[in-house]
């Protein structure tokens, strides 16, 4: 009987071996996958096991943590002026996960990040609870508040950038939401959450980064840059443009708004009065390929990470008539408010496009800096000479063109209005755009802004970039300039 016994012994050995192999598979090979699985509650339990680190604006925290009574979560996230800062912070909810800065820097905020290993080890020996680090943003509280308040109950977004560094100073998206309202995991939180999801105005959509709009006439700045860079045009040269202009391969005539001297206008004049005919013709003459190339210099056709992901703004391949219309921002090209702010900023910074960012520093609990963002140049949109010509055009717009409402005493402001049609046959209320920058007397350009206002509840005739969007841009620029003074 011993031969079968020995074989059974081997069989039992194989059973144990199978268990050991399986154990290694789930606890070693697959361990990380299970550990970080989105349905693994431990992820959320860890996230709220100690007071979370804060997101800092202008030296003050816009977030907080408070102790709760619950079996799973010891702390809950709180927000100060949550509605204003939600487009920046995102949310961290016990029940619904985290997004944006709260999610990207979760490791730092909870203290789990490997770069905080030293702190963790010290805490372990001194018996202190693990602490989270802070995320310092580049935002300017005054600019952000000014933008949010002047947007009021209008639907839209505004982005402000420091053209010299790329630092994001304002990131407004309205209507907004208060992330505090669903930070917990009670039925009340779920009710709020579901209400926000069902809201037709999509308050949780980050319009500043994630929504693309037809850029309308603000895109003419890009077309003008292309025109100058191509060497085929100059700022005060006549452009030999008929008014109205017949679109290529088409029987459609394109006209201009209002009664302005657009026929044969130079770039400066065309920009001043936002002449559709001139820029459509330029776009056609440069051709689709060149237009794609020049708009990509501004950052079109790629995603940006600030470090929150921003949607890709597009200038696609298209046929001739569509390409001509894209030159005035009224075809298949679309842009995020961030992208248009980058356009204004690159022009203001003498053609150098700086990479936009909003994380300035990551700070360990002991106040040492874990990571710091250094401004990076993404590329040149135009030579300094041509960029200055673009500035002259944009400044003319504010001085004596469509952008007059954005004038600020004692400061040079350059801007461009836009009124983008949308909906079939232009039925829906258009999008009102305004992009601008402010230049102080010492020659520095502390801020560039892009504002878009979606179909606001005002009379149709009133909708124009200069009336709806320019005041928001002006308020934000003033806030930034006040801070400088």
């Amino acid at each position, binding site marked *: *009987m*011993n*031969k*079968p*016994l*020995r074989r*059974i*012994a081997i*069989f*039992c*050995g194989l*059973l*144990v071996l*199978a*268990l*050991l192999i*399986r*154990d*290694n598979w*789930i*606890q*070693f090979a*697959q*361990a*990380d*996958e*299970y*550990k970080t*699985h989105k*349905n*693994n*509650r*431990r992820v959320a*339990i860890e996230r709220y096991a100690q007071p979370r680190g804060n997101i800092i604006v202008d030296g003050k925290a816009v977030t907080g943590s408070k102790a709760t009574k619950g*079996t*799973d979560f010891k702390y809950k996230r709180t927000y100060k002026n949550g509605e204003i800062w939600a487009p920046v912070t995102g949310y961290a909810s016990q029940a619904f996960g985290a997004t944006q800065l709260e999610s990207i820097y979760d490791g730092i905020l909870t203290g789990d990040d490997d770069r905080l290993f030293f702190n963790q080890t010290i805490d372990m020996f001194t018996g202190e609870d693990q602490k989270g680090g802070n995320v310092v943003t580049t935002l300017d509280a005054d600019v952000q508040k000014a933008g949010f308040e002047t947007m009021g109950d209008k639907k839209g977004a505004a982005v402000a950038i420091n053209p010299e560094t790329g630092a994001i100073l304002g990131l407004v998206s309205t209507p907004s939401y208060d992330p505090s309202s669903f930070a917990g995991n009670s039925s009340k939180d779920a009710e709020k959450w579901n209400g926000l999801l069902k809201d037709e105005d999509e308050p949780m959509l980050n319009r500043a980064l994630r929504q693309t709009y037809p850029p309308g006439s603000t895109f003419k700045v890009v077309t003008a840059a292309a025109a100058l860079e191509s060497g085929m045009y100059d700022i005060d040269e006549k452009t030999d443009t008929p008014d109205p202009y017949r679109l290529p391969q088409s029987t459609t005539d394109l006209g201009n708004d209002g009664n302005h001297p657009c026929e044969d206008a130079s770039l400066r004049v065309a920009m001043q009065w936002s002449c559709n005919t001139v820029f459509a013709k330029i776009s056609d003459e440069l051709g689709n390929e060149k237009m794609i190339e020049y708009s990509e210099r501004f950052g079109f056709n790629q995603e940006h990470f600030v470090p929150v992901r921003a949607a890709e703004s597009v200038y696609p391949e298209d046929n001739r008539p569509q390409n001509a219309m894209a030159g005035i921002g009224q075809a298949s090209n679309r842009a995020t408010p961030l992208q248009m702010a980058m356009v204004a900023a690159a022009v203001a910074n003498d053609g150098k496009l700086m990479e936009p960012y909003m994380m300035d520093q990551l700070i360990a609990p002991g106040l040492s800096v874990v990571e710091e963002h250094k401004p990076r140049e993404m590329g040149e949109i135009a030579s300094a000479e041509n960029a200055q010509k673009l500035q002259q055009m944009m400044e003319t717009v504010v001085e004596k063109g469509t952008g007059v409402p954005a004038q600020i005493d004692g400061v040079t402001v350059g801007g461009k209005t836009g009124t983008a049609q949308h909906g079939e046959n232009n039925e829906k209320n258009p999008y009102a755009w305004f992009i601008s920058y402010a230049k102080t007397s010492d020659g520095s350009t502390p801020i560039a802004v892009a504002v878009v206002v979606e179909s606001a509840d005002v009379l149709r005739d009133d909708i124009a970039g200069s009336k709806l969007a320019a005041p928001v841009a002006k308020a934000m620029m003033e806030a930034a300039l006040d801070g400088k003074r």
Partner: protein
Amino acid sequence: MSTSQATGNTGSNTTISPGGLPSRRNTELAMLVFAVLIPVFAYANVGLAINGEMPAGMLGYGLGLGLMAGVAHLVVRRFAPYADPLMLPIATLLNGLGLVLIWRLDQSERLALRGDGIAAPNQLMWSALGIALFLAVLVFLKDHRILQRYTYISMVVALILLAAPAFFPASEANFGAKIWIRFGSFSIQPGEFAKIIITIFFAGYLMVKRDALALASRRFMGLYLPRGRDLGPILVVWAMSILILVFETDLGTSLLFFGMFVVMLYVATERTSWILFGLLMAAGGAAFVATFEAHVRGRIMAWLHPMDIFLPEDQRPEGLISDQAAQALFAFGSGGTLGSGLGQGHSDLIGFAAKSDFILATVGEELGLTGTMAILLLYGLLVERGIRTALAARDPFGKLLAIGLSSAFALQVFVVAGGVMGLIPLTGMTMPFMAQGGSSVITNWALVAILLRISDTARRPAPAPVPSPDAEMTQVVRP
């Protein structure tokens, strides 16, 4: 064969035992010290991690476990001096760690909110009862061959025990498996007791019939095919397993009994063909039941797609009703290589049956891959000692009984651990010695006692023709 094994084992021992031959009792005592100390340290560890102080029951627990182990050791020393030295320490260590883990889960607020009561004190009582039964077996069962007399009574008792739960209402909280008999708040799991009793029947029956089963066969394509009428017993056991599965929806018990029977049949007859038949019948039975039993299908679904439970309700595969399988995998994965440390994991998220069927997931999370492998190897070692006992036994009944009990134990460990780790579909069985459950812990202590009795008989010096007076003389003339 067996004697060489036994003397080979004791050859290097220098301990002088009363019989003049090495018995390894002192080895057992030394091992037992560790087997008591490790759980005591683990207990302190849990207390410090959860409450930041030494647990109040520390002294009582340590003394209690130490006392039980000490008494067990003394009884073994007196009544089974030649018994295997490793089985008692391993069983004590597993039982002790199980108590600590149950106590640790008792501290969980999450389980308390679910309405799970405190389980550790009861488990300690059951462990004490189990050790009492262990002692009783060693004291009163002078020779395992006495059990042979009860072959057919065992069959009747085992069948009654196995059939009983089918006549009691299924507990809703138990996901449909009917393996319990309830008397008010008190419940027992008769399948556990049946495990030992039916092994006695199989061993007695096969010992008598083995020649008929082995020799009266035809050769066909290199295999010995049994005669049609000799297929009777295996068909009966197979049918019984299927019935358990259908009426009690208990996958584990069914698999355990059938597997154990096939192993014993193979050992008794030395005919590989039985294994082949066994596998074919098991596969056929499994396919049959999986087609007709929704409960079993649900378990298979949970095994194949554990994470699908998180899909919206309308996209979930049919029959998938519990997130236990996924939660167990999360616990193992979150434990990683070294584990979170005792008292610092969240294996209580498993919820239902965290202290019983899923206790291994707590080992996985809090002691990590390292701890889990150590525990699995301890089980493997215990099984190995059991098989070694079977090899060493001098009588066929002892051999069959020992291999039956060892393989039942091995299969149970495999079925539970494999189920919890997602290697095979989950079944409602308990991890021997560690899991919460009185029936299980009592049965397994009795199982170890019987194995110790067999190994004592096997390792005892060959009985002299004439009793003691001449023993001294023979010793003297030995080279």
